[in-house]
């Protein structure tokens, strides 16, 4: 269904089924397509309240039809993720498209979210199917296993999947307060078993300034 055309364009072949994609990310299509706006954060009234509260309101559209549809967003690199019943945690700004069969929701991330400059909440994608996530530059997939925890810069983190616990660690010392910090004041530590997607670029975060 999902295939990459180059590294920056996602082509989706559809035969009457649907995909969810970021609003306005369609660049071209052939055949017959219909576009309808959806709203992220889950369905119904509960979803609406969640979106209002969390600010994690990715505007999503549903694309349904016959033919091929091409998606791209501001020349970001695109990575395909295959989900088999597990859960993908991704920043809503990094999510480009998902199979319509996948459930999307919102979870609380706490302090880690704030340090990433993305707010306190993150988007989850769950079910069986494919999702396309975006990164600034080609992303690397790093494996986390029980023996090898992984520590990631909050600004370079884009997504993770699997059974992973995350904690927040800080390298703030007295030097930081004198403006002598190394620029790596905060990190996210991943433990457990899973995959973490990291981009070769850093968003502007509080941590980056310290």
């Amino acid at each position, binding site marked *: 269904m999902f295939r990459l*055309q*180059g*590294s*920056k*364009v996602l082509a989706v072949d559809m035969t009457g089924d649907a995909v969810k994609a970021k*609003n*306005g*990310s*369609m*660049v*071209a*299509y*052939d*055949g017959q*397509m*219909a*576009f*309808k*706006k959806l709203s992220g954060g889950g369905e119904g009234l509960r979803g609406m309240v969640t979106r209002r509260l969390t600010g994690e309101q990715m*505007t999503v*559209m*549903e694309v349904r039809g016959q*033919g091929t549809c*091409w998606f*791209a*967003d*501001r*020349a970001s690199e695109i990575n395909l993720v295959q989900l088999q019943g597990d859960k993908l945690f991704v920043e809503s700004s990094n999510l480009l498209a998902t199979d319509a069969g996948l459930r999307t929701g919102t979870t609380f991330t706490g302090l880690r979210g704030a340090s990433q400059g993305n707010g306190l909440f993150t988007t989850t994608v769950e079910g069986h199917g494919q999702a396309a996530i975006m990164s600034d530059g080609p992303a690397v997939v790093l494996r986390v296993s029980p023996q090898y925890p992984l520590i990631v810069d909050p600004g370079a983190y884009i997504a993770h999947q699997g059974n992973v616990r995350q904690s927040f660690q800080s390298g703030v010392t007295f030097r930081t307060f004198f403006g002598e910090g190394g620029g790596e004041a905060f990190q996210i530590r991943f433990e457990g078993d899973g995959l973490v997607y990291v981009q070769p670029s850093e968003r502007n975060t509080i941590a980056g300034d310290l």
Partner: protein
Amino acid sequence: MSFREINSKMVEATVLPGQRLFSQRGAMLAYNGDVSFTPSLQGGQGGLMSMLGRRVAGEATPLMTVEGSGTVFFGHGGHHVHVIHLSGDTLYVEADRLLAFEGTLRQGTMFMGSQGGVMGLVRGQVTGQGLFTTTLQGQGAVAVMAHGGVFEIPITPQRPVHVDPQAYVAHHGEVRNKLSSALGWRDMVGRGSGEAFQLELSGSGTVYVQASEEKL
């Protein structure tokens, strides 16, 4: 051919005596050999009338003539560069997306209103392309710029292609283009999918689409 892609953002052109190239003014990065760059006051080919035509049409991007013998490297603004080879057919492209093209190609200006009537005019406004577009016809190569990579979609009579106006770069062949709007009540109440206007291309040819919705 005379354009060779060095990497995705730079092309190398071979200039031979007696062969001219046109390029966007200031797009030269480096050259070797004996090459001269002359600002082309007329902004391209043709006589005084075609110059006036371009001025009026707002398609008068400053061009320069490249002559001599040697190799010239072109690139501009870190945009991706894509080389298109033409063999007798016509390429429709916005003047500000032109990086360089061979002197063997005939340059012209086309009024968009002549394709699709009133919707053609609306199309120009919506896409920010104005009412006119540049045409290049003949045998030769063109280097066009785009934000993000460029990919080609073939157009066949059975399969018209719809393109986001902001992601459209250029097209060639026997193609009719018209603006199709999918405006519905949802857009009126601010619940649009962000895909209200689309460019519908039908006929036979190729359309070039960029992987981004940003203008140059």
